[in-house]
C-alpha cells in the first residue's frame, strides 16, 4: 500500500520535472537562436508569431492574416498564431506558447494594453522584438503599426460636416472601455471641427448625457453591439420626436453600430440622415450603395498586414528599427514616409510607429473598393441597388 503510494508520487514528480526541464530547455535556446543579435535568424529561418485578441471578428481572417502569412512565407519564414478569444489571461498564455514554439518576432494585437504588459516583458526577456499591431501598447521598445485612428475620426467627421454643416447631430460611440471609442475617434471628430461648431452654436448634439466634452457627448454602445445600438437609437429618435427636433446627421464610430442605427431609422421610417462608419463591412458598404449610410471610412487592412509582415521579416534579419522600410499601396502610405517615426502617445511615451492612412468611401468612391480585392465582393456591395440609389453608377 505504502509502496504503491510512493510509486505514484515518484511518477508524478518525474513527470513534473520532465515538463519543467522541457520548458527550461526551450527558454534557454531562445536568446541564441532568435534574437536580433542572434545568429540563426539571418539564414532565413524566421518564425513570425501573431497573438490575435479576437479572431472571430471577420476582418482578421479575411484580410490581415492572409497578408501577413503570405509575406512571411514568401520570404521563406514560418507563420504561427494563436487567438485569445477576448480574454486577457488567454493572451498571456498564448504569448508564452508562441515563444515556446520558437517565435523570432511577435506581432501582438493587445486585448488590453495594460493587461498584456507581462506578456510583453516575457518577449523582451527572450530577446524577441515586438510589433504592436493595430492597438497601442505604451512601451518605447515596440514597433507600432496601425491605421491612423484619429485620422479615421477626422475622415468620418469631415465627410459628414461637409454634407451637414449646421443642425442637430446624434453621436453614437463604441465600447466605453476601448480607447479608440473614448479618445482617438472623438479627437478626430474635434480635429475636423465638431467641437468648434458646437461651441459656436451651429451644431447641437441631441444626445448629451451631461456637460463635459467629450466624455458626455453621445451614447456609448457596450461591446460595439449592433442590437444595443439599435435600441439606443430608437430611444433617441423617440426623444427627439417628443421634443419636436429633427435629426440632421449621425456620427457613428464604426460599422457595427452604424448597422444598428440604420435598423432603428428603418423601424421608425425616419429616412436616412447622413451617417458615418468605419471598417468597410460588406453590409455597410451595401448600405452606402443604397443610400442608407453616407460614408464608410475604409482601412485597407490588406496593406496593414503586408506592412506588418514586411517589418517582421526585417526585424528577424536584425535590421535596426529606424532602418525598417515598408512598401505599401500609395492610397494608404503613411504621411511621414515608409520608415518608423516617433509617435507621442496619450501616456507620454514616444513609440516608433508606422501609421497608415484610411480612405473615406462614399457612394461615388466604391470603385476603389472593388479594385482593391476587398473581402466584400462587388455582388455583396451592390445587392439590391436600383437606379435611384447613389451607388448605381459605380455598381455598373
Amino acid at each position, binding site marked *: 500500500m505504502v509502496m504503491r503510494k510512493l510509486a505514484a508520487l515518484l511518477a508524478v514528480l518525474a513527470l513534473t520535472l520532465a515538463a519543467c526541464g522541457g520548458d527550461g530547455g526551450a527558454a534557454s535556446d531562445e536568446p541564441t537562436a532568435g534574437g536580433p543579435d542572434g545568429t540563426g535568424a539571418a539564414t532565413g529561418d524566421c518564425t513570425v508569431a501573431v497573438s490575435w485578441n479576437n479572431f*472571430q471578428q*471577420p476582418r482578421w481572417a479575411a484580410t490581415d492574416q492572409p497578408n501577413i502569412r503570405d509575406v512571411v512565407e514568401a520570404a521563406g519564414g514560418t507563420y504561427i498564431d494563436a487567438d485569445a478569444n477576448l480574454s486577457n489571461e488567454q493572451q498571456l498564455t498564448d504569448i508564452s506558447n508562441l515563444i515556446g514554439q520558437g517565435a523570432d518576432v511577435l506581432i501582438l494585437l493587445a486585448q488590453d494594453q495594460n493587461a498584456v504588459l507581462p506578456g510583453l516583458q516575457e518577449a523582451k526577456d527572450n530577446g524577441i522584438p515586438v510589433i504592436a499591431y493595430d492597438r497601442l501598447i505604451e512601451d518605447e521598445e515596440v514597433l507600432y503599426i496601425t491605421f491612423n485612428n484619429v485620422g479615421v475620426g477626422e475622415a468620418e467627421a469631415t465627410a459628414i460636416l461637409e454634407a451637414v454643416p449646421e443642425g442637430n447631430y446624434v453621436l453614437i460611440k463604441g465600447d466605453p472601455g476601448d480607447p479608440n471609442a473614448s479618445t482617438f475617434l472623438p479627437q478626430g471628430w474635434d480635429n475636423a471641427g465638431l467641437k468648434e461648431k458646437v461651441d459656436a452654436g451651429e451644431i447641437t448634439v441631441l444626445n448629451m448625457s451631461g456637460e463635459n466634452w467629450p466624455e458626455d457627448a453621445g451614447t*456609448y454602445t457596450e461591446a460595439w453591439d449592433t*442590437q444595443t445600438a439599435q435600441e439606443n437609437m430608437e430611444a*433617441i429618435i*423617440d426623444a427627439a420626436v*417628443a421634443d419636436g427636433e429633427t435629426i440632421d446627421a449621425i456620427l457613428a464610430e464604426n460599422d457595427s453600430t452604424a448597422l444598428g442605427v440604420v435598423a432603428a431609422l428603418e423601424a421608425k421610417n425616419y429616412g436616412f440622415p447622413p451617417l458615418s462608419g468605419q471598417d468597410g*463591412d460588406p*453590409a455597410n458598404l451595401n448600405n452606402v450603395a443604397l443610400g442608407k449610410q453616407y460614408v464608410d471610412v475604409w482601412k485597407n487592412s490588406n496593406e496593414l498586414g503586408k506592412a506588418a509582415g514586411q517589418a517582421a521579416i526585417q526585424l528577424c534579419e536584425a535590421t535596426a528599427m529606424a532602418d525598417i522600410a515598408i512598401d505599401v499601396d500609395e492610397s494608404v502610405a503613411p504621411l511621414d514616409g515608409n520608415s518608423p517615426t516617433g509617435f507621442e502617445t496619450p501616456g507620454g511615451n514616444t513609440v516608433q510607429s508606422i501609421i497608415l492612412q484610411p480612405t473615406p468611401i462614399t457612394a461615388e468612391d466604391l470603385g476603389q473598393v472593388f479594385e482593391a480585392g476587398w473581402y466584400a465582393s462587388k455582388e455583396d456591395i451592390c445587392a439590391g441597388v436600383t437606379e435611384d440609389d447613389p451607388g448605381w453608377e459605380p455598381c455598373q
Partner: protein
Amino acid sequence: MANVAGTAPAPGRAETGESRSGLRGLVAATEIDLRLFGMLVALAFILLAFNLLTDGRFFSPGNMVTLTVQAIPVAILATGMVLVIVSRNIDLSVGSVTGLIAMTYAALMTDWLPNALGMGADFPFRWLIALGIGIGLGAAIGAVQGFIIAYVGVPSFVVTLGGLLSIRGAIWYFSNGAAVTGLDPTFRLLGGGGRGSIGEMLTWGIGIVGCVAVVAALWNSRRQRRRFGFPVRPMWAELTLGALGCAAMLGLSWFANGNYLAPALAAEYAQQHGIVEPPGGLKVPAGYPLPIILLIGVTVVMAWIATRRRFGRYVYAYGGNPDAAELAGINTRFTILKTFMLMGVLAALSGAVVAARLNGATLDIGSSYELYVIAAAVVGGTSFAGGIGTIPGAVLGAFVMQALSYGLAFMGVNSPGQNVVAGIVLILAVAFDSWNRRRATS
C-alpha cells in the same frame, strides 16, 4: 389575462364566503392574483416615474409601442423559460440558439434559398419557408439538448452551457463573422414598424375580441364552478372584473391607435387611398405592430398549455415534487424533453422578430439573452425551487426590465448605467417576492 382574475379558486382562498375585514375582504372576493396585479402596479409606477422625470415626454403611444416591440424577443423566450425553470431545470443556451436561427434566416433568404434551391426573391411564401426551417431547427436543437438532459441524465446547467458556447461559436462559420443583411420584405413585417402594423380597424377588432373573451371566460368560469359545486364569486365582483377587463382591452386598442404612421408612410397611404393630405400631414393610426400580435398569440397559447393541457400540468407536477410525479406514472423524461423542444421553437420565433427588426443578422444577436430571459421569468414570479411560476408573470417581468432599459436610454443614461439599475431591480423584485411568500405562508 384570464389568470389575473383567477378562473379557478386560488388555493387557500376557497373560503371566500367567509367575511374578512373591509377592503381586504372585497379584494379577496374578486380572487385577483395579487402577485400579478402587484407587478402591473409596479410597471405602471415605473412608467409614471419616467414620465415625471422627463416632463411628460416619455409616455406617448409611439414610445410605448417602441418599448413593447423591444421587449418582445425576451418576452417570447421568457414564456418558455417559465416551464423550464418550473421543472427544476435551466436553459442557458437560449441566446445562442436565437442568434443561430436569426443568422439561419439571413443566410437562407440572402444565399441558400436563391442560390442552392433556385428560390428567387419572388418565390411565393419564401419567407414562410424560411420561418418553417427556422422553427424546425429550433425544435431539433431543443430535442438534442432535451434528450441529453432527460434521458442521458446530464444536468441541464452543463448541457445548455455547452450549447451556449458551441452554438455561439458555430454562428461564425456562416459568414466568417460578417453581418448578413437583406431579408424578404414580407418577413421584415414581423419586425413591426409602420409597414408591419395592422392598422386601425383590426386593432379595434382585437380590442373587441379581447373584451368578449374576458366576459366569456368569466361567464364560463362561473358556470363551471356552479356545475362542480365550487363557491362562486359575488356578482358584483364578476361585473367589476368584466368591466375592468373590457375597459383594459378597449383602452389598449385606443392607445395603440394613437400611434400614427410616420410622415413618409402616411403620404404613401394618402396616395394609395386617393385622400388629399391636410397641411401638417395625414394622421393615420398604425395600430398594433405585428410582433405584439405574435406575442399575444404566444402568451395565450403558452398560458393555455401551462394551465389546461396535461403536458403543462405534468411540468408543474414534476417541479413541485419530482419523485411523486414519477411514481404517479407521469412520463417525466419525455415531459422534460418537450420543455426544451418548446424552448427551441420559441427561440426560432424570437429570432424571427430580431432578424426582421435588424433586416439581417450579426454575430452577436442574442448574446446575454439568457440572463435577461431568466431575470424576466424570475421577476415575474418563477421560483428556482421549482413548481411555481406563471406565463403572464414572465411576460410582465420582461416588460418591467425593458421599461427600465428604454426609459434610461430615453433619458440619455448610458448602457453601463442601464445594467446597474437592471441588476438592482432584479434583486429587489425577487427579495420582495420571497418576503411576501414567506409572510403568506407563516
